[in-house]
């Protein structure tokens, strides 16, 4: 088993005829993901690598029975694309797009919740269940199948940790990149809860960073509701307050969201916190 996606997930790529969308759709197909179609308004009826392109998500879902969607369209169009996927009944929507205004995301997240669709992201690398499927941009080479669940705010940091785990012979059940934006569809706690309930996951690696309080809330959850061991790393100990470190959400503001307070909370909750991402495999061994 795994969480969110597996070899049976039927995936649509919104923006499949775009440069980024097409590039990653091919890599996903190569990995074995069942990409069953794509959507680009105005290009319905075309084909992409043997799968049909539709004008609308409603038409695409009706024809393909897809349950999962990957949103790769630019920031100006991404909020509408996510809502279109939810409206069409897609149950899992993964959005790669970065630079979406927070005001738009607040509406979109509310909309998805009301329609019962799970949104992951935006501004995230996606989800990968090694050996089965990947939806997003996580490189195939960073993980082998196994029993550690990985959840992370960051893309390349996740690859770094996955790669270190692979080199140490530790496999992964599912990698979930939740994204580094201030308002996101799926939080650490959502994913921790799923890992806790996933029989294939035995341990969890959590990769957080400065900004917000999601890691503090996660620490509460780890303390009160988790039986599986958690190893963690928090990026940004050396980041100055009041400066946004690349991710829209990565800012220590008003004394809130520092790496140290998150590390303390996680340690107090019983998580083992690494001071170096390459030390994570040791903490999982």
């Amino acid at each position, binding site marked *: 088993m795994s969480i969110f996606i597996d070899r049976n997930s039927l995936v649509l790529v919104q923006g499949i005829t775009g440069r980024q969308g097409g*590039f990653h759709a091919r890599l996903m197909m190569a990995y074995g993901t069942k990409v069953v179609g794509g959507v680009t308004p105005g290009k319905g009826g075309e084909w992409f690598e043997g799968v049909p392109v539709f004008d609308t998500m409603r038409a695409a879902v009706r024809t393909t029975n897809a349950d999962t969607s990957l949103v790769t369209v630019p*920031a*100006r169009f991404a909020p509408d694309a996510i809502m279109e996927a939810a409206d069409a009944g897609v149950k899992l929507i993964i959005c790669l797009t970065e*630079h*979406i*205004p*927070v*005001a738009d*995301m*607040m*509406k979109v*997240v*509310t*909309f998805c919740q009301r329609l019962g669709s799970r949104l992951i992201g935006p501004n995230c*690398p996606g989800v990968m269940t090694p050996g089965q499927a990947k939806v997003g*941009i*996580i*490189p195939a*080479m*960073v993980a082998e199948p196994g029993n550690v669940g990985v959840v992370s705010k*960051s*893309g*390349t*940091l*996740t*690859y*770094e940790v996955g*790669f270190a785990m692979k080199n140490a012979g530790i496999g992964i059940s599912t990698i979930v990149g939740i994204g*580094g934006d*201030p*308002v996101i569809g799926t939080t650490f706690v959502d994913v921790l809860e799923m890992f806790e309930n996933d029989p294939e996951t035995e341990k969890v690696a959590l*990769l957080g*960073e*400065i900004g*917000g*309080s*999601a890691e503090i*809330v996660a620490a509460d959850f780890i303390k009160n509701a988790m039986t599986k061991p958690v190893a963690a*790393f928090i*990026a*940004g*100990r*050396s*980041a*100055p307050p009041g*400066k*946004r*470190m*690349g*991710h*829209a*959400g*990565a800012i220590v503001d*008003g*004394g809130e969201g520092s*790496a140290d307070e998150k590390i303390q909370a996680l340690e107090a909750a019983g998580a083992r916190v690494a*001071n*170096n*991402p*390459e030390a994570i495999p040791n903490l999982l061994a």
Partner: protein
Amino acid sequence: MKLHEYQSKFLFREFGIPIPNGQVAKTPDEAAAIASQLGVPVVVKAQVHVGGRGKAGGVKLARDAEEARRYAADILGMDIKGLVVQQVLVDPGADIQQEIYLAITNDRGAGSPLIMSSLEGGMDIEELNRSRPDAIIREHIDPILGLNGFQTTHIASAMGLPRAHWRSFGNILRSLYRCYIESDAELAEINPLVITGEGELLAVDGKVIIDDNALFRQPKLAAQRDDSGEPESESLAREAGISYIKLDGQIGCMVNGAGLAMTTMDMTKLYGDADRIGPANFLDIGGGASPEQVAAALRIILSDAKVQCVLINIFGGITRCDEVADGILTAYNEVKPSVPMVIRLQGTNASEGNAIISQAQIPNIISAQTLTQAAQLAVAAVKERA
């Protein structure tokens, strides 16, 4: 993007929020002219993107135009926490009976706008939040539905605002919410919102931060950007589309991805802190960086004279390490850095990338296999040069 106090308040005025009728001065003479035009005691206030200007002497009450000129002369050019004051706001003094705190901000956890309001305005809200959190009324707003009338009544009632002010408070709150929404603000704060001796409400100080990601649809606000307090390298980086923040250390970092970029900084500090060695900057070159971007990033890093070593850490996913290696060599030849460069390439096409680097046989370039090793080598290189 932060707006100055005067920009924030002028924005409030566009949405119908009453503010003092002050003006901005760039010289002492202008300040004196504004004060004499206002004809009342004025407050001369430094306009800088930093907190604590009051304690730093950046806010002064002047009884007349001459005093305004004198205080403006003191404040203009003043250095407050590293930023040089280039403008002052000259506002008429207000007859303050009561100070209210009123702000709308994005609540990340709830994923919705949050109104915070308190009768204990004027003071530092973070301090109030720590010491007396119950003194702050918090009300979440449905991001799709917006602010309801009954919510303004609830806030006024729950904070204990005297009834005589409910109507004008409600109008100001509705205006502030419109301002927050229509300006794509992350924060729209009035502190203090003052009840004057005449019983009027007046936004005496204001702070607005605009969502950088929404500036594309806020051209009027984007045009108000004031970079003057910002390191030149940061302005250059923004123009080049590179995410860069200048820090105080010696190791210039170039990384792909924000989380890994922070982590790389952290590693230099982890291994260097004992010797007071740490990161000179945050820099994320983003996904799929071209040789031109790598060169631009290198130039920006090296524009910082403190940099003693460059650490390039790339974990190739979309980014191909061989392309980055090409970029590094191109950049190297263009920029000819005099400091050593520790290069660690991992992920997609890492071996090809590392081969390109080693074949170039540049003495200044040090290869590393892991992030840990790269950070340790960079720290060692700095120590060597010390």
